[in-house]
């Protein structure tokens, strides 16, 4: 089928839309990782001594792991070894950090966001649904909107460094309580050198009136981005948090090692949505982002709920397992994921559901789409502890293959130590059905539209979990990637 191959080629030739570099004056440290760098980052941010201690402990552990060559190799991804001494660990635009309104933001930055299609102005104007955006440009949070409105409700939503100054008690209590500094190789690196991120605290009984949102963007070359997000929902609180990522086009691979910690206390509910479209590298696999992220939520209280939704279309390598620790009785964990790999992209992603409390429930729905020479793996753990009476899990992992050079893999781990638990796992792998395509074409749809429709239908279960404005973006991202694609 030459027509089909042509279309597949077009899919493979899809260029990265967000490849541009913003010229903003930057304040950066020389490359390298040592105690001095960590101390400098800490002092630039006027951090208290306990936080510096936390960083230094993490640094020592990381250097130990580096020496023991403990970099994880179990994931189904392949990349040349990273020289951790050749990375710039701090880079910030030289704009004043304290900003009252958007007008004070460097217009250059605003234009960047407009190109990204997330214009803060536009978002401000969005009627009905208000979105508060904490934009992270390289490593420093530059603008936080709707802050005063949130303050009225007692909600704290600010950059991580600001929170360290204004709410040190909260940070001290929760930082590292879900992802300890020594948790894994990349979380350890992040704990040592994290530069900024977002912090949100929803007080007791408050339902956050708007979606909280952060946009990450890696700009400067040769920098790694190490942001840290901490989200605490106190008893009975509810919040929905959106996270989106883009990076300009760069030839060398850039490292992104973030840590996200969520804490849900009794009856609280957190919904965390991600749309990730970092630069995936060109069609020969040159450049792109290494996205090595540790995301974990703890359902500490009874009946609490954490829901992860992710649409992963970017990054050269994705290594990401948003997890839920279901401690509270009757707590609920959810994971909805769409991952798309194209060209030479590799993704090893999935989740961990650790059931500790009684009657805990978890749902996993993972959809993988692999095209070009993309390699994609679902790796998930469901663990039912001995005391998790009545625990329930349902997992479904489906993969769709477009093209004969791509791969789709499934590595679920189910560990059940309680006979009262019910665990189900299902996975299927197939290509787009010829009969489905034929049917659609027979009804007058072009092959492209048919593919796009089938893929959207394939992902529907996940896309419908996204908040409205993200669902639109995610659908656009998927169809952009599929433009001209015929499977």
């Amino acid at each position, binding site marked *: 089928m030459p027509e089909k191959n042509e279309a597949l080629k077009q899919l493979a030739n899809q260029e990265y839309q967000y490849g541009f570099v913003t010229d903003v004056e930057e304040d950066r440290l020389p490359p390298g990782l040592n105690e001095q760098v960590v101390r400098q980052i800490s002092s630039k941010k006027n951090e208290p001594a306990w936080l510096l201690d936390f960083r230094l402990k993490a640094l020592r552990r990381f250097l130990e792991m580096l020496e023991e060559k403990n970099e994880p190799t*179990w994931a189904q991804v392949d990349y040349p070894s990273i020289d951790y001494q050749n990375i710039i660990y701090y880079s910030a635009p030289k704009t004043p950090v304290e900003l009252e309104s958007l007008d004070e933001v460097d217009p250059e930055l605003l234009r960047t966001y407009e190109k990204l299609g997330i214009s803060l102005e536009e978002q401000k104007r969005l009627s009905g649904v208000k979105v508060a955006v904490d934009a992270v440009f390289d490593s420093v949070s530059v603008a936080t909107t709707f802050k005063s409105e949130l303050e009225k409700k007692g909600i704290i939503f600010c950059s991580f460094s600001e929170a360290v100054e204004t709410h040190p008690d909260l940070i001290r209590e929760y930082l590292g309580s879900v992802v300890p500094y020594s948790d894994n190789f990349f979380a350890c690196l992040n704990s040592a050198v994290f530069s900024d991120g977002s912090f949100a605290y929803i007080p007791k009984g408050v339902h956050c009136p708007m979606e909280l949102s952060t946009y990450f963007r890696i700009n400067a070359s040769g920098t790694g981005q190490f942001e840290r997000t901490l989200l605490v929902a106190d008893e009975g609180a509810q919040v929905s948090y959106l996270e989106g990522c883009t990076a300009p086009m760069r030839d060398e691979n850039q490292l992104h090692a973030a840590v996200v910690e969520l804490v849900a206390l009794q009856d609280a509910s957190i919904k965390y949505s991600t749309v990730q479209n970092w630069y995936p590298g060109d069609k020969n696999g040159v450049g792109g982002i290494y996205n090595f992220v540790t995301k974990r939520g703890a359902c500490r209280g009874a009946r609490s709920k954490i829901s992860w939704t992710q649409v992963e279309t970017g990054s050269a390598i994705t290594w990401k397992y948003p997890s839920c620790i279901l401690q509270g009785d009757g707590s609920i964990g959810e994971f909805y994921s769409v991952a798309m790999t194209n060209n030479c992209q590799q993704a090893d992603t999935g989740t961990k559901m650790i059931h500790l409390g009684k009657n805990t429930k978890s749902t996993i729905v993972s959809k993988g789409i692999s095209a070009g020479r993309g390699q994609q793996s679902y790796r998930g753990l469901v663990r039912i502890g*001995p005391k998790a009476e009545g625990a329930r899990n349902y997992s479904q992992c489906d*993969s769709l*293959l*477009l*093209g*004969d*050079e*791509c*791969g*789709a*893999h*499934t*590595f*679920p*781990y*189910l*560990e*059940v*130590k*309680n*006979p*009262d*638990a*019910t*665990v*189900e*796992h*299902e*996975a*299927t*792998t*197939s*290509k787009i059905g010829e009969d489905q395509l034929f049917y659609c074409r027979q009804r007058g749809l072009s092959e492209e539209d048919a593919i796009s429709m089938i893929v959207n239908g394939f992902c529907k279960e996940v896309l419908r979990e996204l908040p409205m404005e993200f669902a639109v973006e995610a659908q656009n991202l998927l169809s952009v990637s599929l433009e001209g694609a015929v499977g």
Partner: protein
Amino acid sequence: MTSAEKRSISAWLEASARIVDVGDEAPFLREARSQALATLSGQSLPTRRLESWKYTSLNEIAKIEWAAPRGPLQKNQELPATPLSRQAGLRAGLIDGRFVTEPETPKYQGARLVSLSETRTGELAPSGCLDVLGQVADLKRHFFTALNTALLDDGACLEIEPNAQIAEPIHLSIVDSKSQTLSCPRLALKAGAGSRATLVIEHLTFGDGPRLAAFVSEIIVEPQAELDLILVQREESESFLASNLYARLEQHGRLRVHTLTLGGRLVRNEVVSELAGQGAEVDLRGLFIGSEDRHIDHQTTIDHAVSHCTSRELYKGVLGDSSRGVFCGRIIVRPDAQKTDSQQSNPNLLLGEKAEIDTQPQLEIYADDVRCSHGSTIGRLDPEALFYLQSRAIGPESARAILTRGFAQEIVETVPKAVGHPQLESLIAGALEAATAQAFGEGP
């Protein structure tokens, strides 16, 4: 490494070096042995740090000082008779790794089951399966295969002649009789083109004391051949068994393996099947029943190397008391293996309060025109089914027993009738009774 483990391994390596020195046979065997010896030197028993041993600890084996298999070849040793072996036409046994046959083996049409040592030293006419030996097994990946090969001295050669149709099952009993001794039984099997046969392999132990067996079987299924393999593992509760089975299937070859794990202290099954010819079909079925604190580990690999092959896999676990089951089913579809059709399923019944199951159904797919699925479930008996039976005046205990038997029955159904379904069922019923005694004793 414990000191006992060090002593065991050095005893094994010494014994292996002695065998390598003899040099009385085909050079490839000598070479395989020295390769295995080289692979082993400096190694310890696999630990849980290795991904494939993540859920199975060999600490208990490491604590015991094991002797190497030794002693002169004992001829005319008596072959144990079991309900299953009575169904068989052709019989032989590997007692402590030594080939034993009935005093007067009838001349059997179409199949030849002989001793590896006698056929390679020229006492018997050379067997056609000598060229299977060392060709299918993976020394590098599996410690116990390397161990078995390093100590390779005797074994069973089963050759099914091309186009032979053998209705009666062939029976091979594998017996460990010496306490605290490692035994290395080995089987080389060639199913000739177009042939059809059934082989029952029954693992037994005689006497008390801990046993360790590293059993390796290598199988080549030639074009259009059909082979049924039934492994019945029912050792005593102090026995450790590592059974590694390697099979290569050629065009339109068919292999069905039933693994029934009913006994043993710790049983590790490794089944590796390579679909190397188009149209080949493999069907792996397993039933494992755990009671007390037994540990049963199944690792399977189905490698779709070429296109148009089919694989089916169904492993069922029933775990009582504080027993632990592990299942890792890996399906690989290579880049050119288009039109692959593969299904895997692993339902488990957890009955004991402290029972545990760790399951990993894995798919690794590098081709696009495939149909692959896997599923795994873990749970207890369906309360609605129990209620239904009780509403029909069946007591709760019997209702549970009926449902558990029904769960296990599915595996037996596909075993060829000639093997002896009533005999198998009674063996399974015994194991189920042991596994469920505690769980079902309580009543609702």
